[in-house]
């Protein structure tokens, strides 16, 4: 509980410092392109009661589904490739060839094939963060000491139990690290994907406000995006605290 209070306090003080710096900057720049925080906050609050909330929820939904989908595909595959040398030898070249390709170049093809709705956005994000999580998980699974496997096998564990009691928990901290990095990527990619050929999502909202030179609205959209990032990060933190308690002491 004390911990939570400290976190809230540190959030509040960070926000206060940021607002102060922002206020200072806007007073120096004196341009409509950088409105003062107070006017942005009030327009943000107003927008969130109306249109902005819809775009926020749609973007949030896309990010959340993409993360869940990527994890449930990449983690099992990464664990198995990290442990089963024969499979790895077969698949590793494929991964190393495709991992470095900037997947964003597929956006036009994906839009063409999957349309401009949720499916194309989610596919693009999954395509990108799937590899980040896969590679990290695979490397973590490879690094498990042989002794740990022998230890659980000596207790009579079959392969299922080896994965459940050793391989998965051993890799979990690395999986969370990969996830945190992926969330940043996911939001950046989502913005890009939402900024054209669509009329829903924060990316659209921000770009639309920009073309209308409505800076308070644009910054309201940016604030919503920051909020979304913070919500996802905090959710990950909470999960990690719950499932990786052994790493904190």
């Amino acid at each position, binding site marked *: 509980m004390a911990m939570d209070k400290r976190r809230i306090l540190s959030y509040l003080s960070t926000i206060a410092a940021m607002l102060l710096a922002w206020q200072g900057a806007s007073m120096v720049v004196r341009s409509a392109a950088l409105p003062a925080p107070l006017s942005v906050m009030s327009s943000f609050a107003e927008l969130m009661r109306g249109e902005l909330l819809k775009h926020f929820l749609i973007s949030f939904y896309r990010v959340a589904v993409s993360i869940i989908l990527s994890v449930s595909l990449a983690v099992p595959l990464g664990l198995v490739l990290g442990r089963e040398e024969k499979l790895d030898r077969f698949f590793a070249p494929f991964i190393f060839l495709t991992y470095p390709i900037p997947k964003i170049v597929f956006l036009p093809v994906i839009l063409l094939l999957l349309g401009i709705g949720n499916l194309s956005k989610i596919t693009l994000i999954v395509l990108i963060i799937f590899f980040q999580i896969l590679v990290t998980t695979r490397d973590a699974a490879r690094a498990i000491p042989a*002794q*740990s496997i*022998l*230890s*659980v*096998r*000596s*207790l*009579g*564990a079959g392969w299922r*139990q080896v994965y459940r*009691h*050793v391989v998965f*928990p*051993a890799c*979990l901290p690395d999986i969370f690290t990969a996830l945190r990095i992926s969330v940043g990527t996911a939001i950046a990619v989502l913005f890009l994907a939402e900024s054209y050929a669509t009329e829903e999502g924060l990316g659209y909202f921000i770009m639309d406000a920009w073309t209308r030179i409505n800076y308070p609205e644009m910054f309201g959209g940016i604030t919503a995006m920051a909020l979304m990032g913070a919500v996802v990060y905090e959710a990950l933190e909470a999960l990690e605290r719950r499932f*990786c*308690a*052994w790493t904190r*002491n």
Partner: protein
Amino acid sequence: MPFVRLDEVSVTYKGHGGEVEALSSVSLAAEKGEAWAVIGPSGCGKSTLLYALAGLVPPTTGSIFIGGERLLGERRETSIILQDYGLFPWKTVYENAALGLKIRHYSREEVARKTRDILIDLRLLDFKNRFPSQLSGGMRQRVALARSLTLDPDLLLMDEPFSSLDALTREELQNNLLEVRQADGLTTFLVTHSIEEAVFLGRKILVLTSRPGKIAEIVDNPGMGALDYRNRPEFHEVCSHLRHLLRKGNGDG
């Protein structure tokens, strides 16, 4: 009929860097309830011998019999404590100790009861919700012992269980082990680097040569078993005999 019998057991590892012969033609016979210590230079195949006894590594040639049956894989009644204790840092003391029972599908009540009993015996109950990283080395060692004992083993294999402990904790745990052994009539194999530990805990002491490990000698140690054995002259005689054997083995290798 001996409880554990090895016939000309050799183990060769096939890895990326070619073949490594770790153990060469080891034969021995251990009676039920007997305490064995295994000693030899680093890398001579001591751990390999334990893995073979546990059924985790199959002999490349030769065969192992336990309780009259040929060993073909892991065996329910064998417990092994690995060189670094083999505890899982992501499981609490309780979860670590209960893992063997859980894997073997004991009922929930039975897991709870057996685990609790052993944790009490080894003075660990107050620490049941801690993670291994929050324990001292001696406590971690006791958790590893607890996990092995929950399974009611008839054969207990230990790979340098006390090597990273301070002298006093080590003696205390050695005494613990001696008591557990005498109460249960367990057959034990204990790998160690310490001559004194081998003599204190081994009724028979298997001395291996440097790699590939062959039997240099099986030393009989009839005085073993008394808590005050460390202070007796026979103890020191056996120690100096072992020291001599190990020096000679090292010179040859």
